[in-house]
């Protein structure tokens, strides 16, 4: 897959030049971790790395420990706690978000690897006037949850599933949504919700 170049997000370089005060920028620039960095300026262990993310159409600049997962960056650093931590090992799907439009597991992605990317979380789905995304509305209409813990991940995954073209039949939906576990077993209602919303979801 070709990785699109950073688009809407400010590039780190532009951001450094334009936004951060000189005193703050100097140490941050030294933390740049590119291969062309001269030997004298090699990145060091535990040195925070500045990461630009565009989340729900808003730009963020974070100074992160390299070990921070995208999930923890969203929840703990930005305060977007709609994305849930279930297993934290890529087995449950609760942490699903869209990165550059594709559904991924934010628990298995280091935040620094998402520099310059566009992230959509459950908080970014509804319209500014509060109108729910068709997939959110469909989950309510079909009672697609009980406890609700897996629901943000289910909804993000359902949108990805539709946009990938894999919601053609109930069997397809079951197969291509299998990475999202629901311990309340709301599966039949989830399938019904995806069927309802698939026509209105494409490209959303």
């Amino acid at each position: 897959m070709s990785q699109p170049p950073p688009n809407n997000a400010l590039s780190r370089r532009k951001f450094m030049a334009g936004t951060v005060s000189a005193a703050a920028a100097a140490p941050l620039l030294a933390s740049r971790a590119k291969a062309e960095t001269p030997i004298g300026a090699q990145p060091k262990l535990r040195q925070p790395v500045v990461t630009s993310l565009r989340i729900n159409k808003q730009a963020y600049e974070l100074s992160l420990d390299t070990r921070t997962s995208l999930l923890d960056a969203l929840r703990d650093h930005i305060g977007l706690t709609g994305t849930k931590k279930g297993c934290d090992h890529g087995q449950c799907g609760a942490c699903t978000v869209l990165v550059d439009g594709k559904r991924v597991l934010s628990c298995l992605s280091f935040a620094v690897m998402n520099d310059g990317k566009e992230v959509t979380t459950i908080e970014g789905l509804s319209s500014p006037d509060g109108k729910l995304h068709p997939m959110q509305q469909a989950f309510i209409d079909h009672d697609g949850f009980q406890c609700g813990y897996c629901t943000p991940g289910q909804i993000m995954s359902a949108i990805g599933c539709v946009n990938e073209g894999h919601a053609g039949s109930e069997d397809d939906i079951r197969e291509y949504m299998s990475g999202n576990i629901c311990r309340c077993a709301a599966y039949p209602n989830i399938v019904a919700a995806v069927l309802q919303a698939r026509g209105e979801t494409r490209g959303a």
Partner: protein
Amino acid sequence: MRPFVYEQPTAISAAVAIASRFTTHDDQPTRANAQFIAGGTNLADYMKLGVAEPNRLLDLNQLKEQELRQIRVTEDGIRFGALVRMGEAADHREVKQRYPVIADSLRLAASGQIRNMASLAGNVLQRTRCEYFRETSWHCNKRVPGSGCAAMEGFNRQHAVLGASDACIATYHGDFAQALIALDAVIHAEGSRGARKIPFAKLHRQPGDTPHIETDLAADEIITAIEVPAIPWARRSLYLKIRDRESYAFALASAAVALDLEGDSVREARIALGGVATVPWRAKEGEEALRGKRLDEASASAAADAAFAGAEPRRHNAFKIDLGKRTLVRALLETRDMKV
């Protein structure tokens, strides 16, 4: 998790140069201080568990060489760039037409999210899911050489019946690799000692006395492409995967099959087995048993018996021998009946 320095090399040569600066030629790639990352679905998980402990990660996603991201179909076959994601290859029209066994193996692996993240090269290098390997408080010869193997006397229902040794019975859990070994794929790699091609069958190493040596790769070597030769009759091929639940689970037994038929009889058969062996497993004995034969239930069963002749069960995994044979028989008959 151990702290690590994060770097984003922008050329293969730069990535190799950094890796060779921070590793030695004797380092195993999975145990080296500097390690490559692409999708991260396997490595990030094992870093969280303390199984993998690199202190430097080289992110390959910014490499400028565009062929790393391309699937190219030519007269000679198909060439997958190493950074192509599993989902892209699974949905590729010509992959589905020309090599159904490849598309099946990818579609039936992992989940939609993981297939969007995981690169093809990373997928073939995924490490075992052996519970005693994953949990660092157990003895494991693969994780800590010479420490012993807790799986031998432990709960070994998931473990291998083919290719095991007294040191290790951990299963290779990948699916795509079974399709690749069946089709005689070739790996292209680049390292500080130059570029080379590795027959896919030589990429993974059986555990023997050194289960910590998992592949033939050096620590500073990067897989750049996976090439599958043109095999016109591979249109008659499929991957059958049997598991505890219908989707998003590793195989208990699987079979990759491709058949060159002349009427009812077999000119050539390709068979690889998953979920039952320590490495991607080509079953040449099974292939030979079918050559020139009419393919029916009896000859398919004879081939399955031949494929599992060397199987060695442990306490909890003996069922895999029968299940593996039945899986192969069904895969052979379904492949025979494909409309191509």
